[in-house]
């Protein structure tokens, strides 16, 4: 600065004002750049048509015999619908000690299915059929004591990709790479034999 002071054609520079202007300009530019990124980042979200294709799916329960399973689709995911027999239900609490999350504390499910049977109606089990490990499709292994799955197998699901095992409430067994129970989608029963996947039961308590 002292060099310039000798030259009286150059006015004294207000350093603090200059610093403020530099910071303000750079800051405004940075905010602008971030805001401009918003539409580009947001454009990656599911489109309106993808959202529309995610509308609820209906399943006719009269088609399923007790002890059988059918699969349905909702939001590009396979949905498993199992009609559980009384024997299947009574066997459920017997292996709680072998499960990672027997009470589904850490797992994802709607509040109304966070119970011992993991279901709204005990005979109907509704699961998202993608392994919570890395998204493969677990296969049905409903026959109890199937030694090819494991000793004392109570019946359930077995993922062929990385060997995760789930019981007939979609709860994961210890020793599986998956850490969480199979997810449950929102669902409700508008009538005795009709299941709607993607709609919660209404507030009045009508299932």
């Amino acid at each position, binding site marked *: 600065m002292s060099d310039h002071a000798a030259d009286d054609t150059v006015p004294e520079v207000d350093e603090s004002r200059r610093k403020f202007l530099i910071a303000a300009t750079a800051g405004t530019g940075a905010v602008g750049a971030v805001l401009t990124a918003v539409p580009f980042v947001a454009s990656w979200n599911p489109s309106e048509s993808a959202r529309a294709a995610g509308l609820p799916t209906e399943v006719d329960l009269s088609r399923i015999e007790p002890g059988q399973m059918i699969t349905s689709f909702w939001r*590009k995911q*396979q949905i498993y619908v199992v009609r559980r027999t009384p024997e299947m239900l009574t066997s459920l609490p017997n292996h709680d000690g072998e499960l990672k999350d027997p009470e589904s504390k850490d797992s994802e499910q709607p509040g109304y299915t966070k119970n011992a049977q993991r279901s709204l109606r005990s005979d109907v089990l509704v699961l998202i059929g993608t392994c919570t490990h890395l*998204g493969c*499709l677990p296969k049905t292994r409903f026959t109890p004591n199937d030694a090819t799955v494991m000793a004392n197998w109570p019946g359930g699901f077995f993922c062929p*990709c990385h060997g995760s095992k789930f019981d007939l409430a979609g709860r994961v067994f210890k020793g599986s*790479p998956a*850490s969480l129970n199979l997810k449950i989608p929102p669902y409700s029963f508008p009538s005795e034999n009709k299941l709607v996947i993607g709609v919660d039961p209404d507030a009045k308590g009508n299932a």
Partner: protein
Amino acid sequence: MSAVIESKGGFRAWLNKRLPVDQFVADQLTGYYAPKNFNVWYFFGSLALLVFVMQIVTGIFVTMHFKPGEATAWDSVQKMVREVPYMGIIQPMHAVGASFFFIVVYLHMARAFLYGSYKAPRELLWVIGMLIYLALMAEAFMGYVLPNGNMSYWGAQVIINLFGTIPGIGPGLVEWIRGDYGIGDATLNRFFSLHVVALPFIIALLVGLHLVALRQVGSNNPDGIEIKEKLGKDGKPLDGIPFHPYYTLKDIVGVGLFLTLFAIVLFFIPTFFGYFMEAPNFEPANPVSTPEHIAPVWYFTPYYAILRAVPDQKMGALLMALSVAAFLFVPWLDRAKNKSIRYRGLASKLLLGMFFITFLVLMWLGLKPAEGLYVMLARIFTALYFAFFVLLPFVSKADGNGPVPERVTYHAH
């Protein structure tokens, strides 16, 4: 920089006044001095550049016939391979090229480990190289998804769901990456855009930076001693020779050998026994049929083996990310005074040998189903993998300080 080029008049002078062509050649090629003791390990840098150019050229031609998207991708690949003249060679050239890219890059990285090429002053050169490796992994993954074969689909399912394990933002992030509730048109089209436009640009930029950083610090060599410290009267390194013509000629030999191997694989064993192209990918994507066992292509399997070795999903994904990220810290983990393995003790040699073997064993385990003995072995070798990075600071500090020669080891041919 080297001598300023004098104008000689005529077109060349006219050109050089406007575009410094001669100056560039003098700085980067004829005036760039590289150590004279390079060995066969030093082929892989220029070969990586060659494969990159090959992938760009074949990629341009594949793009001319490829139709991204759920309904069209599979059929367009079948059609180009079966019906378009010579695309039956050009498309597999692109697919086989991906595997060769990783072969060359892994050998290039192994060279850096052998001769300490990541050590000061080349830390940033290494870090930029690792960024290229990361970008290349993303590029290869997306390229594998594009044809929408069944392994494309399920591989993408597994890899994208890895992001779902990030606490808090995971599930939303997965939906954002896919642009749908499952892998669909939106996913395939954005992967196409990234694979064909964004990532090649990024890789080209990083390769450029890699070369600029290399010119700045100069090449390391098998003895790991700095040739810039022993200059002749002319100011040139005594142990250095101009990159052109000496190493350009040497690299031509490497290119010839490489292309011979490449052609043998391309023409006679393009699937390379199911390792370069996997059998389930010869059928179209099927969201209701998981292949018997999902394995990524061989170049990802070391990390995949680590992922599957851990019986907890979040920990598995975290260890997998860590196993890749660990490479970034190697320049600072290695605390030896000497760079080259030639002037380090037995412990360093054993440690590095163990790491190379571990990487190869994990690569093999990642191709095997996750059951019984394989899981046990994967756990053991995952432990050994990380043991390398943990032990490196101590071992390198203890036995990497012996005497080094004044000048590079060199036998005239």
